[in-house]
Structure formats: structure tokens, C-alpha cells
């Protein structure tokens, strides 16, 4: 059962440096979409990986193995630690908060520091989350170029363009209001 808010609270409590990417990042920005997992792009330093592991360990992480049920996968001799996390570019555990994709690199994105301008703060139930912008999500999906990524692109772009149109309209209304306000001041 997906419980992203529980996961986000744990990550915030441990002060993990990460950016929400993938399907959930699209959904919270208004794209009509569905996904089976929560994708987190994390900064790959030992200290941050330790914090991430500490948060995830409270959610009973186990492997996701095709052909095995979750109950069967729980019996596998596997333990999440910094070494296990660091040994793979993408780790995809199942947890009590849902299936996770923990990614250390993103197609089309140079590195963690390169996305500073491609993050928006999104407030979710009192938690301020760093979320990859729709613009960067499009770049990522175009670079990854899997069928399901390509299929999602028109819906993502539509949401991006509608957002841009709204922002432009609001900006012109604000400047109109301020012109009006100035006129009032002058005439007073």
C-alpha cells in the first residue's frame, strides 16, 4: 500500500537530500498519471546515503523480485545498507510505504548539483518537498526514451504549457492592477 506522505515525513526527519522525480512528481504538479512506485533522486554522498538508509530501514525494505510475492521476497537474505545502496545506480526495494525507485543518476541530467534550477518546492500536507520541474521531467523522459516515457510526454507538455499560460495571465493581471493602483495614487 503506497503511503508517500509517511515516507516523506521520515525522509524529512532524517534530513535526507533528495528530489521527488518520476510519476509522483508529475501527479503533484497536475499531470494526469498513474504509477506503481515512488521515485527519489538522492545526493550520493556517504553521509546522505546513511541518512537515506536510516529512514528506509524503518519501513522494512525487501527486494522486489519478478515471480516472487512480497511475502516470499521478505524471506530472501538481503539487507539494505549503504554498501547495498551504493553498489547500484538504481535500487528498487519494496517497503511498508510502497515500492521505491532510489536513483543516483537521471537520464538527461548531468548530476545532482546540476538540477538546482530545475526544482520547485511543493507543499504536501505541511511537508515542503523538492520536486523536479515538469520541464526537467520532460528532458529526463526524452533522454530515457522508453515507450512508457514517450507515451507520457504529450500529457506532461500539456500541463506545462497550461501552467505557463496561467502564469503569464496572472503576471499580466498583476502588472495591470499595479498600473491601476498607480493611477489611483496619482489622482488622489
Amino acid at each position, binding site marked *: 500500500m503506497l503511503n*508517500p*506522505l509517511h515516507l516523506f515525513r521520515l525522509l524529512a526527519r532524517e534530513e535526507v537530500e533528495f528530489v521527488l522525480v518520476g510519476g*509522483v512528481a508529475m501527479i503533484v504538479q497536475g499531470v*494526469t498519471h498513474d504509477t*506503481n512506485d515512488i521515485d527519489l533522486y538522492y545526493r550520493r554522498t556517504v553521509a546522505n546515503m546513511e541518512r537515506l538508509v536510516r529512514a528506509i530501514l524503518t519501513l522494512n525494505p525487501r527486494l522486489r523480485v519478478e515471480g516472487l510475492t512480497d511475502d516470499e521476497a521478505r524471506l530472501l537474505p538481503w539487507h539494505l545498507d549503504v554498501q547495498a545502496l551504493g553498489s547500484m545506480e538504481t535500487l528498487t526495494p519494496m517497503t511498508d510505504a510502497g515500492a521505491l525507485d532510489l536513483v543516483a543518476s537521471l537520464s538527461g541530467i548531468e548530476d545532482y548539483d546540476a538540477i538546482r534550477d530545475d526544482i520547485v518546492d511543493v507543499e504536501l500536507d505541511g511537508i515542503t518537498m523538492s520536486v523536479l520541474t515538469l520541464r526537467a521531467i520532460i528532458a529526463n523522459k526524452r533522454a530515457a526514451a522508453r515507450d512508457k516515457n514517450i507515451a507520457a510526454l*504529450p*500529457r506532461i*507538455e500539456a500541463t506545462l504549457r497550461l501552467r505557463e*499560460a496561467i502564469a*503569464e495571465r496572472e503576471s499580466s493581471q498583476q502588472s495591470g492592477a499595479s498600473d491601476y493602483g498607480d493611477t489611483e495614487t496619482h489622482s488622489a
Partner: protein
Amino acid sequence: MDGHSSTHTILGSAEPLTAEQRAERLRQLAAWGVDLSLSSAQLGKSPSALLQEWLAFRPFVEAAQREGRIRPHRPR
């Protein structure tokens, strides 16, 4: 579906557009099959509401997946 076959470029890019170009792109996206009224309606909701709406929908998808009514596509 005619819009799909008549459009050879991949729709889904993020380059800066003028207002006129944006309006034209939105027309192309609608012709391709994107439901702009649905997308607009989503933008009127808060991120928390969007997340809760999706989470409320998930149990139905998960049940369908468990029961094999939704499966990954396997080309025949």
C-alpha cells in the same frame, strides 16, 4: 486517432515558446488526443489534493493488478 497518424514529430518538449506558439502547441496536443479540460481542472487543485486523489484511486488499480485484470503488455 487520425491526429496520431498525421503527426510525425514527438509531442512533448519543453523549449521556450511565445504565447502564439504555445497556443498552437496546445491545439496540436488536443488534436493528438490530450484532454486539455482535464489537465486544466487538475491545475486548479492543490498538490496535496492531487496526491490524495491519486492515492484514493490506487487500491482499485492494485486490486485489478492482483487479480490479473491489468497486466504488463506482452506483444503477441
